[in-house]
């Protein structure tokens, strides 16, 4: 089972290895039968290892010295204060009562008007209408303040991310040396599940909006750096040479050629940064970030599906609005790349309208506080509740059947195999697989990861998480190959499905939990299904692109030779799309892992639960930190093994 994904890719290359892999797996099962249950390194939820105690002590020491150690006084505390004042300023502006007033500086009317105006200027009237409608909808949902908190945090993090990320990206675009240095760091940052950024940051910056913003900006910065560098690097050589041959200075080259010609790509980076920030801000509710995420998490913890649905919907709407507006702005930049001069008068007129609305919302209560009597949030929550109830009662036969089938056929056996095996057996299997599939380097990495995992004291929880991850990834790959090949072969299917996948990818991770919580209630299965749905779009798209990228001539010659559709798929398209399959498995794994961990919130237990518990209970802090490390180690190990079987480097 453990090699479903890996086995698929290897079948066509290096014959003989599949047999060896199967032999290793068989040996595992054979040894497992007698050795079962010994050396499993179990640790009950309340137990701690010396490492966890030590981390707790570190936390206490840091807490005690936070206001005396120069390291904190002059560095971390300063950063926290600066970020905090930016976020507080933004919250005062649009979200929280401020400056001795019962309402924020800008009320709902002002925010809607300004947002619509800005969207219109940069993106056009359609995105502007969508933005206005979306923001009014937050008010109607009764979630205006929460939405604005989320927006304020997102904006704060995005501003800082871009201020740091774009210059770094320019540097990486200009300097080969820096580019080589920064790429592996970015690769690593992007493979880390969102979750694990949080714990170490709370150690340095306490919990609260400042920490949340810092975690968010760290998470959101890589795309800005990466895409800026990419944009600068893909400026046509001839344009740069022409400018040099005319005697341009470095600065003239940058401002006259490189930046203008990479503007489109940089805006794409801004888009991705914003989406990443929104996703992280909602998860950062775990470390007490205000906003919609908090509402969702509270509701999830009390299994209040209706409220979770309402707030989750607001997050989805915000994601759609932010994505549409920035994507449209990016397209406009890419298509024209030129300043439009003809709209000056309109620009002024609408500017005045927006300013008037802003003034009204600053001065009059009706324009500041969203009216209560038109709220539909309660109705939405109630309907969602009744749908959930209906689903749990009337669909339960179907959902139970699915749940049980997968739980008993896949999950339980695999979990038993992983969790009840002695640690040395699992370790040996992992190292052997790395050796069979990869190079010396992957063997070393895997061995180191296994050793460190044992060191975290959370071996058994790691194995439980690993079992869920493998099952979910297998399902993702099944979906990815089936739907991906269909889309790759059929343009019509591609046209219909792709926008859905794109929309799915822009959603912050944990809104996926809400509907499945309604269907499957709080179990690890909910987490698995949410993970599959979360990870499937990226895998499907990679497979579809891989199949699509096969040269038409190759497909034509196969058809000319009289291949059936099935022969075409199995003998031409899948083998030729092999690198894409590997990449899809790799990315799928990373996405699944991050979601399975978030699933700790809804009863998935294991590492995710350890992390969440660490945030809420002081004596479990060290254990949570160790769990975060274990997640990273699992991620690296899986990434290495999956990547090892691919000849090309799998990053996008």
């Amino acid at each position, binding site marked *: 089972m453990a090699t479903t994904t890996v086995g698929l890719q290897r079948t066509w290359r290096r014959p003989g290895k599949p047999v060896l892999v199967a032999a290793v797996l068989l040996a595992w099962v054979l040894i497992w039968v007698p050795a079962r249950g010994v050396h499993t390194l179990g640790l009950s939820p309340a137990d701690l290892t010396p490492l966890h105690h030590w981390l707790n002590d570190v936390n206490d020491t840091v807490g005690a010295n936070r206001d005396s150690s120069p390291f904190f006084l002059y560095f971390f505390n300063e950063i926290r204060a600066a970020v905090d004042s930016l976020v507080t300023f933004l919250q005062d502006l649009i979200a929280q009562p401020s400056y001795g007033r019962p309402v924020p500086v800008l009320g709902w009317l002002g925010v809607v008007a300004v947002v619509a105006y800005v969207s219109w200027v940069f993106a056009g009237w359609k995105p502007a209408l969508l933005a206005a409608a979306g923001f009014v909808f937050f008010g109607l949902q009764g979630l205006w303040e929460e939405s604005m908190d989320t927006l304020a945090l997102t904006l704060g993090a995005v501003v800082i991310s871009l201020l740091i990320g774009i210059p770094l990206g320019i540097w990486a675009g200009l300097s080969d040396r820096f580019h080589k240095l920064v790429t592996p760091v970015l690769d690593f940052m992007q493979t880390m599940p969102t979750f694990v950024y949080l714990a170490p940051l709370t150690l340095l910056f306490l919990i609260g909006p400042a920490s949340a913003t810092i975690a968010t900006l760290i998470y959101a910065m890589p795309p800005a750096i990466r895409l800026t560098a990419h944009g600068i690097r893909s400026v046509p050589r*001839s344009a740069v*040479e*022409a400018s040099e041959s*005319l*005697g341009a200075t470095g600065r*003239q080259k940058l401002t*006259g050629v490189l930046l203008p*010609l990479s503007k489109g790509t940089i805006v794409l980076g801004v888009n991705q940064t914003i989406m990443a920030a929104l996703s992280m801000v909602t998860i950062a509710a775990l470390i007490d970030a205000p906003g919609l995420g908090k509402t969702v998490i509270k509701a999830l913890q009390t299994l209040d599906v209706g409220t979770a649905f309402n707030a989750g919907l607001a997050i989805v709407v915000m994601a759609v609005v932010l994505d549409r507006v920035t994507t449209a702005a990016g397209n406009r930049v890419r298509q024209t790349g030129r300043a439009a001069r003809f709209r000056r008068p309109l620009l002024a007129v609408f500017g005045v309208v927006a300013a008037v609305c802003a003034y009204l919302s600053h001065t009059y209560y009706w324009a500041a506080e969203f009216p209560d009597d038109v709220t539909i949030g309660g109705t939405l929550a109630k309907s969602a509740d009744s749908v959930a109830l209906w689903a749990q009662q009337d669909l339960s036969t179907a959902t139970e059947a699915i749940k049980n089938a997968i739980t008993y056929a896949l999950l339980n056996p695999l979990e038993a195999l992983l969790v009840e095996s002695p640690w040395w057996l699992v370790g040996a299997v992992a190292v052997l697989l790395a050796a069979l599939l990869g190079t010396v380097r992957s063997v070393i990495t895997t061995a180191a990861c296994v050793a460190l995992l044992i060191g975290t004291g959370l071996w058994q929880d790691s194995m439980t998480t690993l079992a869920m991850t493998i099952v979910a990834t297998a399902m993702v790959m099944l979906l990815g190959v089936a739907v991906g090949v269909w889309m790759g072969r059929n343009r019509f299917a591609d046209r219909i499905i792709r926008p859905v996948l794109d929309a799915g990818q822009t959603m912050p991770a944990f809104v996926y939990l809400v509907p499945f919580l309604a269907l499957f209630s709080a179990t690890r299965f909910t987490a698995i299904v949410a993970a599959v749905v979360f990870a499937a779009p990226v895998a499907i798209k990679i497979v579809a692109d891989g199949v699509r990228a096969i040269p038409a001539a190759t497909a034509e010659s196969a058809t000319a030779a009289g291949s059936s559709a099935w022969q075409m798929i199995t003998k031409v398209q899948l083998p030729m799309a092999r690198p894409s399959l590997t990449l899809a498995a790799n990315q799928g794994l990373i996405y699944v892992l991050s979601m399975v961990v978030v699933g700790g919130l809804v009863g998935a237990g294991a590492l995710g639960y350890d992390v969440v518990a660490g945030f809420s209970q002081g004596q479990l802090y060290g254990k949570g930190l160790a769990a975060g490390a274990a997640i990273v180690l699992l991620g690296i190990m899986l990434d290495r093994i999956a990547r090892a079987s691919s000849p090309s480097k799998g990053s996008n």
Partner: protein
Amino acid sequence: MSTETVISVRDLWKVFGHKADRVPRSDELKALTRRELIERTGCTAAVREVSFDVAPGEVFVVMGLSGSGKSTLVRCLTRLVEPTAGQVVFEGEDILGAGKRRLRDLRRHKFSMVFQNFGLLPYRQVIDNVAYGLEIRGASKAERLRRAREVIDLVGLEGYEHSYPDQLSGGMQQRVGLARALAVDPDVLYFDEPFSALDPLIRRDMQNEVIRLHREVGKTMVFITHDLNEALRLGDRILIMRDGRQVQCGTGDELVGAPADDYVRDFVRDVPRASVLTLRWVMRQPRPDDVLDGPELGPEVVIRDAVRTVLAADRPVKVVRDGTLLGVVTAEEILTVVTDVEAVA
């Protein structure tokens, strides 16, 4: 020497790779072929020991197949690519020794370049693309727009000032590139295969354009091409390169009439010889029985232009320079060339 040459290149080397500078310094490494050099050192020698002079007002063509090092050579002349060894003397100054600021100054005022892929800025209108070089050297807006309009007229782009590059055809885009290079009023224009990306008909138009501009503005031009016919049409002199080395340098008729080796001979095989060779290449010494009172022609007359005269005369045509009889030409010599039998040494 420096009064008669604009550019003087001596023993120029460009080697790519690790520790490239050891190659030109070692006689042993210098003697290796390209492939041997890669195997021995991992370095690629793009330009090897090239020397030539370009006179003021001359159109100097560098010709070679892809990979012959010609594009690297022209980039070495402006130091877009840093040469590994040798000398590039520009108007008496060795520009390899020029500092950053001086080099920038030279690029801004003394020479400019036209590129194969145009290198236009897509977000700027034609007029702003043309004015780009002037903008870089800090000319005022009024000044650079005035000059840009002038050059736009010169290259025949009137009416397209406010178009964007992607709205123009390839030929038109290259006119913009040409205008941009001319706008800074340089002493020398470098052309890096400027017309290779264009359709044959447009290529011909653009070649005529260059000939016309050369007549009108009289700039010195260094022109890179892989097209022999283009080289013969435009070049006062032609340098043929192969594997980074210069094989032969001379006028068109010298290359066709006296190829330095089999490579060049192979190259010029399909050239219509009658339109390149002059009488100098086909005349023979008068024999005692020749009647020497026929019509006279100069030695630089192209054969094609002499056909009528020679065939119409019933006696040998005399080839005369400054009153001295150099030789005679009869219908037989002319017909040998015109019917393209390889008889010329």
